[in-house]
């Protein structure tokens, strides 16, 4: 161990006193790791939004064979029938208005919810960053805006807000653990229906969010709801919320899977970059290594120095790239919305740690072959080669 520690200062000096070589290598690694961590954060967002948890209790009732809030129209009166189905704890009619139905990075989604109950449950006073629920209740055109949407559109309590043909007033901004909530503006159901009435859809909602009293009953309740309206004028398709998001986001999921391949390929680039840099460094330092061995340093010491230098390059580039990706994601507030459903790209700690750890490990592995070649070279041969 002592033998390994004594090589650290020399390795460090080799890195910092060759700033151009170190800088260029670290920059290359940082770019590749940035890409990897960014893509992994995107994939993380998709997984979080679409993976069903064991405790999932929310179903989304949507109009059958419709794939956009504009096209999904259900009578609000369905609420009573849904509430009568065994296992249903709550059913909230929601009107969704979006300014763009296709996949986009800046979609504004309005959810119209009843005045009582839903918002009081979803937005507690502790979650409010500004404004209040009572302000929302006191004005018909008031909206409570999720934090991610507010940051994207730079909205604050008291601002006027105009999107998707809806003119509203921001009563407050709230935080939530749920990406769907963070990316919508909650309006009064009646207000949104009234706004949409110009198209003759008063009393019509987009979907029902149904809370089931037991996660094990999800499938049975979904089937019961769809059966209840199967022969109605407005048949329904009911899915767990995660499955609903996954269906809506299927194009994005495919794209993110493809991007994930690019992310892993960028790690291969990290490996190649470090291997190349270290191979060149070892070639340049054949004489230095021969000198050190003449002074009494062993081949193992030399090998360890080379591996450690490669790992340090990987760690430095990995840290800059991964932390840069983390900061960029946190700053950019990226959010994919399609068909009114949001997938938020949040800065993933796991992706950041993975970026740093993988770049460090790849660096160490990339250094092994040059390290062995440096360690095995005979001293005299080293002086002759140099």
């Amino acid at each position, binding site marked *: 161990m002592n033998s390994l520690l004594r090589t650290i200062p*020399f390795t460090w000096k080799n890195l910092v006193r060759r700033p151009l070589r170190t800088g260029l290598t670290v920059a290359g690694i940082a770019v590749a790791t940035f890409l990897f961590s960014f893509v992994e954060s995107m994939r993380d967002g998709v997984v979080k939004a679409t993976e069903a948890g064991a405790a999932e209790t929310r179903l989304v009732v949507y109009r059958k064979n419709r794939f956009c809030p504009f096209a999904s129209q259900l009578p609000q009166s369905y609420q009573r029938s849904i509430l009568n189905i065994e296992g249903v704890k709550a059913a909230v009619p929601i009107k969704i208005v979006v300014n763009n139905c296709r996949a986009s990075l800046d979609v504004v989604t309005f959810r119209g919810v009843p005045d009582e109950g839903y918002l009081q449950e979803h937005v507690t006073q502790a979650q409010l960053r500004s404004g209040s629920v009572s302000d929302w209740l006191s004005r018909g055109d008031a909206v409570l805006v999720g934090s991610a949407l507010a940051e994207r559109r730079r909205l604050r309590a008291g601002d006027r807000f105009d999107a998707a043909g809806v003119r509203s007033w921001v009563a407050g901004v709230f935080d939530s653990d749920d990406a769907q909530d963070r990316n919508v503006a909650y309006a009064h159901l009646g207000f949104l229906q009234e706004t949409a009435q110009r198209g003759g859809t008063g009393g019509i909602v987009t979907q029902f969010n149904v809370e089931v009293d037991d996660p094990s009953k999800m499938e049975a309740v979904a089937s019961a709801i769809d059966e209840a309206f199967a022969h109605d004028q407005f048949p329904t398709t009911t899915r767990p919320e995660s499955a609903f998001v996954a269906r809506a986001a299927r194009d994005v999921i495919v794209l993110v899977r493809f991007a994930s391949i690019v992310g892993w390929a960028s790690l291969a680039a990290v490996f190649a970059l470090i291997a190349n840099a270290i191979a060149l460094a070892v070639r340049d330092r054949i004489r*230095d290594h021969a000198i050190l061995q003449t002074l*009494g340093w062993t*081949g193992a010491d030399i090998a360890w120095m080379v591996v450690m230098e490669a790992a340090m390059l990987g760690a430095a580039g990995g840290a800059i790239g991964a932390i840069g990706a983390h900061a960029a994601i946190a700053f950019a507030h990226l959010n994919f919305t399609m068909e009114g459903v949001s997938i938020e790209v949040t800065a993933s700690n796991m992706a950041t740690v993975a970026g740093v750890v993988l770049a460090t490990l790849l660096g160490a592995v990339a250094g092994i072959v040059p390290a062995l070649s440096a360690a095995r070279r005979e001293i005299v041969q080293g002086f002759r080669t140099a």
Partner: protein
Amino acid sequence: MSTIECRKLRKDYRRGEEVIHTLQDVDIDIHGGSFVALMGPSGSGKTTLLNLLAAIDRPTAGTITIGGRDIGTLGRNALAAWRSANVGYIFQLYNLVPVLTAYENVEMPLLLHALSAKERHQRVTEALELVGLADRYSHYPRQLSGGQEQRVAIARAIVTRPTLILADEPTGDLDRTSAMQVMDLLVRLNKERNQTIVMVTHDPSTAARAGRIVHLEKGKIIDAAEFERAAQIAASGAHR
């Protein structure tokens, strides 16, 4: 003090099909505390013999016993440890590590010894003072003249207080004044510290500063006794 005994020492190199006999059955004894100059034309095997004594190369045949120890029996790691404890090597082209300062270059061999940071500092400072470069400790090799670089290399070679100092044409790349300074230093180390010095040189006047001259030609020691006597007579004035 190390007594060196080489017996039937041979070193062959292979160049394609051709075998080059660089050293052929060399027998030599070097007494501890002596200062020996190895002389001879290019390709005579001087540097090869020096490298074998430093254990940075292995003989094809024969034995080298230094301080009673047959170094041919040691493995790579044991040889490295032996070099670290016993040998100081001075190169013709100085061979300082370019990213390290003079101080750090001198400190490098000490990192292999069980010394505290304070002890290392004392030893490095002492070595740099001895070679007259205490004020250049923070300079990088590129900021030093050739003579200064060689003196840093000497400081690096002596900082571990080795019993054996091996010098490969230490003045070969220096101007006259710097060469004189370096030779004065080596003679002083030999006399004051009783360190055994084996030095390769082409230059008769440099060789004359040594206590004994060994002449090599085509891998063999030529008339050593006779040459030695003549060389000692020639060098007696300069050595004193």
